[in-house]
């Protein structure tokens, strides 16, 4: 195999890469499916008539009463999965009903290769803990729908203000800012929901798709590091010295996690919906990367400078909501947890490593191998990965200089 050609991994090559990077069972399953599917034909944009038939067949397996679907429409704005909205009409003995639902479906490949069963289970577990869309059904291996997919409820709300604040937020709400009067109520809820996620008793929930890292060990960090190192090997066009430096540093500094929590893993502006009139958060979205691990992983993600947005005086606000020091202080007060700066630093590097990999390698690979419906966006958003590489290098270089 040419070093630049990663479309046709042999079975032996797949077995070797799986052995080299121990990851969670379902993470392994999703990444292995990706490599196997990549060997097949090019991905084509889902045909709406075909999807309508498949969706009807899928729902027929889930409900007992007569039903039909209408208004099946593709949604724009997704940065990763194919998203559709439809109305499900049911004729039950108790009366007819109509529900607006969302179908979230994997394309051939996307910016983050994830397992729909994990997303489905964690969203179901979060019901009543934090606002999430209702979960309905999951087709984890895509046996009926053609691709791995889940159906969930439609939630009203917006991900970024109708009147843009500053320049950012155009792609996936990254770097979206908020009007001054809405920041305080949004910040209070943003922190409260984060704390609720971290305090969630995952031990009594059905999270069978998740592996549990052992508390008091470095497993939580090493499982994540292995996952992203594997993705790099599967997707990169060519090696990059900053990724090499980062992998070495991350391997040499694995932190112990004493308190295993539920980690959302993409908790930021753009990934919650809110009511613009009341400033109430109506849903926390994008749970596909959720895992059990160290709460510093979420904190470091939230504090990432790339998600910040400046206030009226140019001060960068964490996720467009509050200055860094204020955010950390309020988080510590509300959660009762202390922020360990060393661990926060580790996860800052790890998160930049992830971002650099999915931005510079996975995006470009999906477009190169014609496995996405968003080829143009995948190419363009490689800029995100290279921006992360620059920031990653600055941190590693400063670290080395200080020693």
């Amino acid at each position: 195999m040419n070093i630049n050609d990663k479309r046709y991994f042999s079975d032996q090559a797949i077995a070797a890469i799986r052995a080299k990077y121990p990851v969670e069972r379902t993470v392994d399953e999703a990444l292995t499916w990706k490599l196997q599917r990549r060997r097949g034909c090019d991905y084509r944009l889902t045909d709406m008539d075909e999807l309508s038939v498949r969706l009807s067949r899928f729902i027929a397996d889930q409900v007992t009463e007569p039903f039909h679907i209408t208004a099946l429409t593709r949604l724009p704005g997704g940065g990763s999965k194919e998203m559709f909205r439809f109305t499900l009409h049911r004729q039950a003995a108790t009366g007819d009903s109509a529900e607006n639902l969302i179908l979230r479906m994997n394309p051939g490949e996307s910016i983050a290769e994830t397992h729909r069963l994990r997303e489905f289970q964690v969203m179901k577990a979060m019901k009543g803990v934090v606002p999430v869309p209702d979960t309905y059904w999951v087709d984890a291996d895509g046996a009926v729908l053609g691709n791995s997919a889940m159906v969930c409820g439609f939630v009203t709300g917006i991900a970024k203000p109708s009147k843009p604040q500053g320049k950012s937020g155009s792609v996936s709400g990254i770097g979206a800012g908020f009007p001054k009067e809405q920041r305080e109520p949004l910040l209070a809820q943003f922190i409260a929901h984060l704390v609720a996620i971290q305090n969630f008793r995952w031990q009594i929930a059905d999270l069978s798709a998740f592996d549990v890292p052992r508390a008091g060990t470095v497993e939580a960090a090493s499982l994540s590091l292995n996952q992203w190192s594997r993705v790099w090997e599967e997707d990169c066009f060519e090696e990059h010295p900053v990724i090499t430096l980062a992998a070495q540093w991350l391997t040499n500094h694995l932190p112990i996690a004493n308190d295993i929590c539920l980690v959302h893993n993409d908790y930021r502006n753009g990934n919650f919906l809110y009511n613009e009139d009341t400033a109430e958060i109506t849903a926390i979205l994008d749970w596909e990367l959720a895992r059990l691990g160290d709460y510093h992983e979420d904190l470091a993600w939230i504090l990432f400078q790339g998600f910040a947005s400046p206030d009226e005086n140019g001060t960068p606000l964490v996720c467009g909501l509050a200055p860094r020091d204020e955010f950390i202080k309020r988080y510590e007060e509300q959660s009762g947890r202390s922020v360990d700066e060393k661990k926060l630093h580790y996860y800052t590097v790890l998160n930049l490593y992830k971002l650099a990999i999915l931005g510079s390698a996975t995006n470009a690979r999906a477009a190169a191998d014609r496995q996405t419906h968003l080829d143009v966006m995948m190419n363009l958003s490689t800029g995100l990965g290279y921006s992360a590489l620059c920031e990653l290098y600055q941190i590693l270089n400063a670290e080395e200089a200080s020693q």
Partner: protein
Amino acid sequence: MTPDTNQYLRSIHKALQTVILPELTDKPFAREQASMVLSSLSLLIEIQQFEPCYLRQEYKDICALLKHWAFGYCHGGSCDSWEDISGIRCEDLEFDEIQDIKATMPRLKAGLRALMDSAMPQAESVLHKMLHAYICRQLEREKSLLRKTGFIPEGETLADIGKTLAHQGAFPLLPRHSEPTPHHQPESFQ
């Protein structure tokens, strides 16, 4: 003289922006995609003419670094072990044809990774400083190349890729603080 690639791209950009995009008001997914095509065209208009030059500069830089790295090994009489670790052959660093350079770059970068993993130079050594200078130059090129993607902070204020390549061409990568002398000038590690 036929229209050059840049002229074609500019014309496509104009037609998309002024004729096609306004017709897509009631097709949000198509409109979103068309907007991204427009952004990609703006990027291409700036960078496409520099692709060969970019590759040559990448190649020059990595060859300068690897030759200096190899010199340390070969000077001690262990060229074979350097080749074993890096998987790079002497002739890989002597190409001139752009197709050869393009085909060889991934292998050179894989070789650099192998060297960094197995034989990282000591901090503060000349080679170590040269490695970091190499990385800075690579990041500089990548930022300039992608400055119009909308993801590079302050992208609009950065030098475009043409200017960055001109600057790097004028100031080649050299070992910092210790200019190679004729005695150990690593022109070749054969």
